């Protein structure tokens, strides 16, 4: 038996038995290629908070192998490097602090509920819910993209192309790279850079209340401004943060709601609990399943000594269900507010968790309040990205 086979269909559909086995039998598991998979709550938290454990291994790998890859494939990786040049998830130390400080200067917790409600209404009008429909295509993918692109100020005529290209580009966040995906990430980076540059030009001529205008204005006022590639990369990270994880959260939330009519009734009776329901989805089946780090120093975890410069795959999804850490962690419970690491911990804690949760809460509430009953038809289909757990298909039937 190979304990770490996350790409197997049964583990893509439900990775939690694999995580449970690892937690109970080999919580700091050394894979055959020398990586370490870390699954217990305290260990995961320790790695996420350890400043000697760096992120950004994909970018390092790309830099190390760029010439070999470029020669063999006859393509330039420059667009990908631009897109990732100021991607906070791939940065460490002072560089990370500098970019994060800049982003915090333009990004603050705000009430976007009106915008979210308008988008939900618009999406609902575009489809006929008379029979069955794929909730992922019609709502879960569109709401986050439409929301973050409206906040950024990107032309709404570009939404279809943004949808297709962001999906391909954000495979960059997956833990294992393949040549075919790498090539499509480069192609998508070229298109997304063109859309963003076009938006920059428009906002430069006609500044408005959008996030991109705020980014450009702030950068103009900085003593030590970001370079143009860094500004582009900051926009990529807002798109990434705004799109993939929120789509995953919304899809997972609707799947759980559709499968359990008891919660549909419970939430109808106690609408103040929608927030709790979404918080519990965040903990129990989080969109961000894994994160990758590299330890600069030798590390001791459990009974293992991990040599320096090892690749550490930490599973937040597993940590959240660690019953040695939290009683009943492996059960779905709306009211318990159990602790979790779904949005990370420490310096790389997610900056937009509140936006993802507010979209999921609004959409789940909208469906559950409008429809008498929501049913899942057939089995859902998951995408194969191991880092961000998202659905590609969730067929629903709704009864008014």
């Amino acid at each position, binding site marked *: 038996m190979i304990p*770490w086979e996350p790409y197997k269909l049964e583990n893509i559909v439900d990775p939690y038995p694999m995580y449970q086995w690892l937690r109970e039998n080999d919580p700091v598991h050394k894979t055959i290629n020398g990586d370490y998979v870390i699954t217990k709550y305290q260990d995961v938290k320790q790695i996420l908070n350890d400043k000697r454990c760096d992120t950004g291994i994909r970018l390092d790998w790309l830099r190390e192998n760029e010439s070999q890859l470029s020669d063999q494939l006859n393509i330039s990786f420059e667009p990908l490097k631009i897109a990732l040049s100021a991607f906070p998830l791939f940065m460490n130390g002072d560089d990370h602090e500098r970019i994060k400080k800049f982003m915090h200067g333009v990004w603050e917790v705000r009430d976007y509920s009106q915008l979210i409600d308008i988008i939900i209404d618009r999406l609902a009008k575009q489809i006929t819910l008379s029979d069955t429909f794929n909730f992922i295509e019609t709502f879960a993918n569109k709401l986050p993209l439409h929301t973050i692109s409206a906040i950024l100020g990107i032309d709404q005529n570009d939404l279809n192309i943004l949808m297709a290209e962001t999906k391909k580009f954000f495979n960059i966040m997956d833990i*294992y790279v393949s040549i*075919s995906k790498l090539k499509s990430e480069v192609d998508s980076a070229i298109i997304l850079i063109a859309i963003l540059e076009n938006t920059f030009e428009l906002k430069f001529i006609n500044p408005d209340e959008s996030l991109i205008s705020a980014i450009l204005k702030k950068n103009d006022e900085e003593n030590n401004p970001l370079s143009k590639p860094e500004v582009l990369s900051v926009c990529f990270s807002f798109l990434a943060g705004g799109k993939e994880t929120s789509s995953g959260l919304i899809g997972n939330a609707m799947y759980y709601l559709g499968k359990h009519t008891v919660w549909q009734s419970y939430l109808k009776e106690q609408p103040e609990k929608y927030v709790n329901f979404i918080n519990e989805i965040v903990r129990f089946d989080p969109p961000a399943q894994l994160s990758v780090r590299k330890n600069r120093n030798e590390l001791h975890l459990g009974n293992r000594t991990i040599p320096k410069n090892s690749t550490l795959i930490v599973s937040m999804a597993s940590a959240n269900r660690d019953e040695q850490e939290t009683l009943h962690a492996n059960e779905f419970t709306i009211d318990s507010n159990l602790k979790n690491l779904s949005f990370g911990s420490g310096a790389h804690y997610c900056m937009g968790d509140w936006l993802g949760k507010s979209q999921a809460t609004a959409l789940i509430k909208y469906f559950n309040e409008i429809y008498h009953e929501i049913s899942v038809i057939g089995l859902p289909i998951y995408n194969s990205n191991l880092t961000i757990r998202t659905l590609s298909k969730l067929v629903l039937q709704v009864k008014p």
Partner: protein
Amino acid sequence: MLTKNSNELTTFIKAKIAEITNLNIEDIDEDTEFGSLGLDSVRGLFILQELEELLGEEINPLIFWNYPTIRSFTEYIIKKE
């Protein structure tokens, strides 16, 4: 497109390894680990890419490590369906 036939797959992978590493195809043992045949993580990816194109399906790169010989890798790909 390649069919999922053990002999065809084995021959294809051996030919690709020979092409990349300059080994003689007859010297490539089916039970020797890829690393010992001179394949590193990047060179392995190029073989996976060609296999993906030939088989018309995605192959996660970790499979290459979890089934690290021609024999075990081929058996996995064939049984996967």
